[in-house]
């Protein structure tokens, strides 16, 4: 049965050697969505993007593209999906020929010059100045933008971006953001973007999915607490933070286990100022507030000692609790729902 989703993944697993590096039980990406992938190094973001880009085939499971199983080099996906790698590689040729390469593969040579100019314009590089430059005559940020222009020139159905702003300045990041949003609005391009910069991601994406150590936690905002854990003597275990606060958890599988908390909440306002630390409540300071792209919800980053905890709140809740960077609040980590990794 044909599906409306661009991607459908079920029971996907990918391994390098014997160790599985990515497991995705289920994932659906609708057309024209902008999906963010967030997670620390080694969480599997790039692997997932390579799989979605059909650069390689998964060890186990299928990736359905528009309802049909697709594999690398298959005609269904070859000219529809394109990936911009973390450190993009420019072909050893001029900027113009880098941009025209993909079009020439498609046998699409009409008004090539105009289209090269348009692609460069999308990323804010003047055609006259850059078109004739060789690959080695570009700065890091310019090379990144040329590589993006080479993908945008193809008007792809799916554009996958791996850390697109990791090594660019603020102006380039803004350009890249504008170009990706424009691709969606003008051509209905579906975008999947992996980034460390979750503020940028939340500004751009409709949905942000969290990954950690090859596991997908979906849209739940995850907070990761690394071991070691110490027994408290009452059957529970704890991690003592540098400021003396303790995160109490059920017995971990091993003392060095990593706890992933899928829910964090702002503790009810008790009128204390600063709030009193009591069982399950951690004292922290609001360090950032980020409005999600739909304008309804706010992501608050609360610094508990050195540990950043993210919490999702409605705008009304932010107003009601008078949250602002610097404000001290209590955070509830639901230890009973911690996932051990």
């Amino acid at each position, binding site marked *: 049965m044909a599906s409306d989703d661009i991607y459908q993944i079920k029971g996907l697993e990918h391994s390098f050697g014997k160790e599985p590096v990515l497991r995705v039980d289920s994932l659906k990406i609708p057309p024209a969505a902008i999906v963010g992938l967030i997670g620390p190094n080694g969480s599997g973001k790039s692997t997932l993007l390579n799989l979605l*880009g059909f*650069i390689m085939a998964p060890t186990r499971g299928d990736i359905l593209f528009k309802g049909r199983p697709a594999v*690398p080099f298959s005609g269904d996906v070859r000219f529809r999906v*394109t990936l911009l*790698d973390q450190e993009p590689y420019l*072909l*050893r040729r001029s900027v113009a020929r880098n941009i025209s390469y993909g079009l020439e593969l498609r046998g699409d040579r009409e008004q090539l010059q105009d289209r090269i100019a348009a692609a460069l314009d999308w990323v804010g590089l003047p055609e006259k100045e850059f078109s004739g430059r060789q690959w080695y005559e570009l700065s890091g940020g310019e090379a990144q933008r040329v590589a993006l222009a080479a993908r945008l020139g*193809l008007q792809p159905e799916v554009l996958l971006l791996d850390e697109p702003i990791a090594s660019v300045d603020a102006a380039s990041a803004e350009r890249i953001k504008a170009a990706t949003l424009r691709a969606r609005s003008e051509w209905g391009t579906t975008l999947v973007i992996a980034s460390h910069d979750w503020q940028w991601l939340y500004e751009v994406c409709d949905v942000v999915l969290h990954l950690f150590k090859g596991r997908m936690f979906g849209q739940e905002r995850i907070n990761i607490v690394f071991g070691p854990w110490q027994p408290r003597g009452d059957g529970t275990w704890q991690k003592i933070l540098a400021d003396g606060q303790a995160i109490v958890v059920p017995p971990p599988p091993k003392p060095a286990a990593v706890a992933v908390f899928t829910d964090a909440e702002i503790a009810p306002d008790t009128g204390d100022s600063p709030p009193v630390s009591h069982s399950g409540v951690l004292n922290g300071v609001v360090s950032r507030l980020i409005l999600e792209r739909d304008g309804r919800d706010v992501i608050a980053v609360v610094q508990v000692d050195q540990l950043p905890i993210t919490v999702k709140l409605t705008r009304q809740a932010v107003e009601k609790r008078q949250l602002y960077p610097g404000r001290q609040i209590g955070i509830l980590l639901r230890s009973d729902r911690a996932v051990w990794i």
Partner: protein
Amino acid sequence: MDFILSGFLTAIDLLRRGDAETYSAIFATVRVSSYSMTASLLIGIPLGFLLGYCKFPGRKQIRLVVDTLLALPTVFIGLLVYAFLSRQGPLGQMGLLFTLPGIAVGQTILALPIVMALSASAIENLDRRLRITLISLGANRRQLLLSSLWEVRHGILAAALTAYGRVMTEVGISMMVGGNIKWHTRTITTAIALETNKGLFAMGIALGLVLMAIAFIVNVSVSFLRKR
């Protein structure tokens, strides 16, 4: 010192007035090196690509053998080819001994490991991101292969240049397999060796100058191609 200077001046004169014997050796060298380079590039680049790009059992061992063959002495190749092409050898009926194609066979054996090893190194050093870039821009398997080769063109050019340098300057194979026959299989290097033994420096210097000029022209052409 005078004999070197006069030899140098006579050499210029020999080249200027188109001395037939000198030019015969030059043409023999250009012909035989063209044969051997064509063969070694046609065989060596695809094999080097396989060796550098594909993972298969025994690859490391083959690589070790190819790398070892880089140090093959030319007289040893000459000896082997002579043994195979001589009348009592397994390929004796082909009648290649003391011919330019016979020398070319030996020079191909000399150049092949160089082309293979250096092409394989260039391809091994290909950026892993190139493959991702080419596939993500829509390349099929054939386009992936051809574009990857094009990306390492400078490395392959360097491999060809190194092999050409070895082929042009070797004496052992040309002497043993070609026999240094005047007007026939006498190449620049065998002629220099012979003329110097005879005490005739002028022709030796003339041919040496030509060898240098060819090397210079090849290098200029390569540096021009590098910019493209």
